[in-house]
Structures are given as structure tokens and as C-alpha cells.
């Protein structure tokens, strides 16, 4: 292409641009850019085979090692063989500790993925990408919600894998229905929104990934242990039970056990879902409102 050709093409496009100016400043929808940003984060995950592999292998290892090593049922069957079945089902609400734990492992994997949603905003800040995004007219709330949604997407995919592996490794499927599985993932979805919002919100001002790691570790294990995910809360000391009862991880796990295993729940299903819905709405709103003030350079 000759230089003059290129010139004339450019002049042409310049004219087009000027005629476009009026349409370009039309207000785009308030959530424009939300999907683009979410997709950017998801793409980083699914186009990086190693990351994808690692995030899938981790729950499998946990489930396999943790679930099979801590076979509480075996304690009873070795000491009181004739009573063990009854004891196990009264303690865990299902036929084996493994099935009990599998439901808890679903929430566990979501908690772990949500934890890293904050980390990703810290990296974006450090690598300058966030600064670029902040100069565009994209809603600050969309920047936060994109992090939340990409984390939710990732964690739900991992939860699906965990459930499949759990079934393969011997989780009780006798009471599993399609509706129950769908309901379980609805509960997981709500918990993931709330938890991811929480971790993103804590990372809004941070440029320091070490601080972020410390915060993650500080919150992560208490959220896990002060819940019914690994052990039934009714055997915990009373003060701990109060914490369990305000911990969203407990309600997501409780809903999953009722829907997948038909266990008697800690609370009614409708209470579980109301709690999780409230948690998700409250924390995503706080996250959005905080982004207006704190998501600056």
C-alpha cells in the first residue's frame, strides 16, 4: 500500500470517527464492561492449562486424602460393630463420614477459591492494569463485581468436579435428585457471591500481596473450622456453636447435606437459603458501595 493510499484511508476513517462522536458518548449501560472484565479473569484461568489443572487437582487431593484418612465411621465399627451404623447415621446424618465430608468439601473448595478473588485485584493494582481500568468510564461497582463473578464461576466449576469425584469415591447417592443437585449449587452460588465480595472488599486498597495473604489465612481457617463443614456442630462447645450459627459456610453446607444426602438439617432449608441470600446481597452491596470510595489510585 502506498503512503498516499494509507493517508487517504486514514482521512476516511477520521471522518467516520467524527460522525461517530455523537453516538459514542451515548451513555452505555451501567453494567457495560462487566462481562468483558469477568471474561478476562476467566480466560486467564481456562487458557492456562497449569492453573486449570492445579485448581482441579487440589480439591481432589483434599477429598481423597482428608475424606478417606479421617474415617470416623471406622472408629465406631471397630469398637462397637453392631451399633456402628446407627451411631454414624445419628452423628453425621448419613451412612458414612465420607458422604458427610463430601458435602462440606463443596463449600470448602468455594471458600478457598473466593479467598483468591481479593488477590487478583491486588495483582491488577500492582501491574497497573487496574489504573488503566479506572481511567475508563466503567462503573467502579462493575470492576468489583467482575472479580466476584469470575471467582464464582471458577469455584462453581471446581465444586462440580468435587461432587463428581466424591460420587466416584463412594459418596452416598441414594437420596440424590437432580433438583437437589441444582438446589445445592444455588446455595453454593449465593455463598460464593458473598464470600468473594468479602475478600475483594478487603483487598480494595491493598497493593501488598503479603498483607493480603495474611488476611486470607486469618479468615480462612476460622471460617472453615467454626462451621459444620468438617464436623457436626452439635458436638462443639456452646460458644463455638454461636459462631457456627452466624457463619455462612455452615448454611451452605447444611443446605447441601439436606439436598444431597437427605440429612436432618441444622436449620430449615428455607432458613438456609434466606440466610445465604441475605449474606450474598448484603456483602455484594457493601463491596459496590466501598468501591465508590476506595477504588482509586
Amino acid at each position: 500500500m502506498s503512503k498516499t493510499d494509507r493517508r487517504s484511508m486514514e482521512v476516511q476513517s477520521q471522518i467516520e470517527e467524527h460522525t461517530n462522536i455523537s453516538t459514542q458518548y451515548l451513555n452505555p449501560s451501567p453494567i457495560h464492561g462487566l462481562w468483558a472484565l469477568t471474561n478476562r479473569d476467566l480466560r486467564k484461568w481456562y487458557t492456562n492449562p497449569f492453573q486449570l489443572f492445579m485448581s482441579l487437582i487440589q480439591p481432589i487431593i483434599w477429598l481423597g486424602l482428608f475424606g478417606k484418612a479421617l474415617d470416623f465411621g471406622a472408629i465406631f465399627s471397630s469398637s462397637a460393630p453392631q451399633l456402628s451404623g446407627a451411631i454414624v447415621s445419628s452423628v453425621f446424618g448419613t451412612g458414612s463420614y465420607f458422604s458427610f465430608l463430601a458435602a462440606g468439601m463443596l463449600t470448602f473448595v468455594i471458600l478457598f477459591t473466593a479467598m483468591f478473588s481479593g488477590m487478583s485485584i491486588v495483582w491488577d493494582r500492582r501491574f497497573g492494569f487496574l489504573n488503566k481500568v479506572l481511567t475508563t468510564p466503567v462503573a467502579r461497582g462493575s470492576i468489583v463485581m467482575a472479580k466476584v463473578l469470575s471467582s464464582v464461576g471458577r469455584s462453581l466449576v471446581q465444586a462440580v468436579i468435587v461432587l463428581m469425584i466424591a460420587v466416584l469415591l463412594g459418596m452416598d447417592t441414594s437420596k440424590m435428585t437432580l433438583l437437589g443437585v441444582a438446589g445445592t449449587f444455588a446455595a453454593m452460588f449465593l455463598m460464593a457471591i458473598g464470600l468473594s465480595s468479602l475478600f475483594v472488599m478487603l483487598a480494595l486498597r491493598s497493593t501488598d500481596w503479603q498483607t493480603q495473604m495474611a488476611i486470607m489465612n486469618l479468615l480462612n481457617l476460622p471460617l472453615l473450622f467454626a462451621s459444620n463443614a468438617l464436623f457436626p456442630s452439635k458436638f462443639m462447645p456452646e460458644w463455638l456453636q454461636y459462631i457456627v450459627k452466624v457463619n455462612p459456610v455452615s448454611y451452605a453446607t447444611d443446605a447441601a447435606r439436606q439436598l444431597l444426602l437427605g440429612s436432618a438439617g441444622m436449620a430449615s432449608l428455607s432458613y438456609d437459603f434466606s440466610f445465604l441470600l441475605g449474606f450474598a446481597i448484603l456483602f455484594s452491596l457493601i463491596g459496590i458501595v466501598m468501591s465508590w470510595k476506595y477504588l482509586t489510585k
Partner: protein
Amino acid sequence: MISDAYSADHGYDSNIIEVKGLSKHFGKLKAVDGITFQVKEGEIFGFLGPNGAGKTTTINMLTTLLPPTSGEARVCGFDIRKEANEVRKRIGVVPQEYTADEDLTGMQNIMLCGELYGIKKSEIERRARELLELVDLADAADRKVSSYSGGMRRRLELAAGLVNSPRLLFLDEPTLGLDVQTRTAVWEYIRELKEEYNMTLFVTTHYLEEADSLCDRIAIIDHGKIVKIGSPSELKSGLGGDVIQLTLDDSSDLTEAISRISLVKEVKKSDSSYRIKAERGEEAAPLIIELIRSRGMHVKTIALTKPTLDEVYLEYTGRAFRDDEEPSKVWAQRMTMRRARA
């Protein structure tokens, strides 16, 4: 005219940036301390100063990244605090650091930017190709950014800053850390882009020769305050003009006679050489030579020096431009800023 309609529509006449008493304090540190200036539509406005003078903080405020502590500013006719989103729609920003996502290709980066501006999907791809063509990255469009060289990344940043066809482009140290050849190339792109899109450019730099040759007007900022503002030639002539140095083959005193030439402002003699300050040195020099010949003497050597921005800078800040401040001081200041932000 489209541009007239545009200006009228958006409530500003010729000043695309209006800044009044703008300040930003980080704790006790006054990073920007009550600056006031205007930028006219269509000009290249240079913001010049040493590290830590407040250049980037000013850009961050004008591009709505940082809320000011006090004062006000209107960019493209909109208040940077109350109408931040309207400002964002109309400006392009090329920050100091690389901001592209390394895991994505050049093309994907530009497309993502386009989506963040809410440009229609059908439009974005055409526009991204066009921009990458413009900055000569068409061949590398589908490569991951992590494989780009420094110069390529700079050009990609430029393209990303142009996605929304801004009327005003902010460039923060666009050539920082680039070698001389790449710097020249980047400036060529910038100049070309400005002509192509008829944009206003707001550039910060600490390369004096760049500011001198490119900017229509320059503001010198130091310790958060604007110490001088004007066109490069205004700033330089403010120094008292050009310097002519002469050596004669005779030591008789001509000071008196030379000072009578109208362009000459100041004459200093030592032995048989003279140091003469004059306006329009290239016109004054022949007059001086003629005078000397008419007295039957001869000029052995002559040199004409035009003042550089280096000298302007020295004059107004009392520091040589190239002497970086004591590093420890700059460092302490940066740390204060970081702490105040956290």
C-alpha cells in the same frame, strides 16, 4: 464545523482543561500545592519537573484517579469530582507504567479497552485493527503482550489510550526508560497521532529537549507548585536572550560602542574577549562584527548560544535539571505518599 459543535455542546470554549487552586496532600506532604493553569484545545501542553515534583499526582487528579484535597478542575468542560464519568468518557490516558494485560494478546487488550468504554461490539474490532496498524503492531496483534519489547509495549499503551477517540490525551512520561532511538520513534507516533486526530495533548516529561521541540506551552512544576508557564521560546527569552562570545585580536575596550547596538542588552569584557547578551543573536552578531571591523579590528573567534530549557529550569528552580535530588529524599517522599494512600 464538527469541532465547533462539539465545543459548544460540551460547555467549554477554548480551554479544554481549567485548573484552579488544585492541591493534593498526602499527610503532611504537599504533593501538589495549589496550582492554577489552563490548557487550550488543540495544543501540546508540557508538564515539566524533576522526580517527585507533583507531575504524576496532577495527572492522576485530572484523569479522575485521585480525588483532590482542595481546589477544582474542569476537564473537557466537566468537573473532575462531580462528573468524573463524563470526563472519563472523553479522555485517553497513557500512564507511566505498562498497564496492558501480559497474558492477553495486543488485539485482546485493545478490544477489552474498547469494551470498557462501552463501544459497540461491531465497532471495536475494526477500531482495534486500525489502531494497531497505526502504531505498527498489526503483525504482533495476535501475540501475547509478554513477548513484546519495551518500545512495542509503549506503542500498545498509546493505541489503548486512543480507543475512545479522545479529544484530550494524557501522556505520563511516554518515553521514560526507552533508548534514544525508541524515544524518537514514540514521539513521531505521538506527533502523527495528534495531527491525525486533532487532539489536545497533556504530556509530562523530564526530558528537556523533548519538551522544547514538541510542546506549544510548558509549565515548570517544582515542589508541587507551578514556577513558570509559557511557550518554550517565551521561557527562554525570559532569560535575557542569546549569548554571543567574541575574541578579538586587539584588547582596546569596545564595551561602550557595542552596548549602543539596539539588540544588545549586556556586555562583559575580559582581556580581549566579550560575553554579550542580546535579543535575536543571529541578527545582533553581524552588526557587532561590522562595528568591530569599522574600528579596524578583527574577530578571531565567535560563538552564538541560544538558551536551552536547562538554563530556564536552572533559573526558576535553582537546581540543575539533570542533578537528581538526593535519592534518599525522593525515596522518603515516595514512602510518605505510599503510606498516605494505603
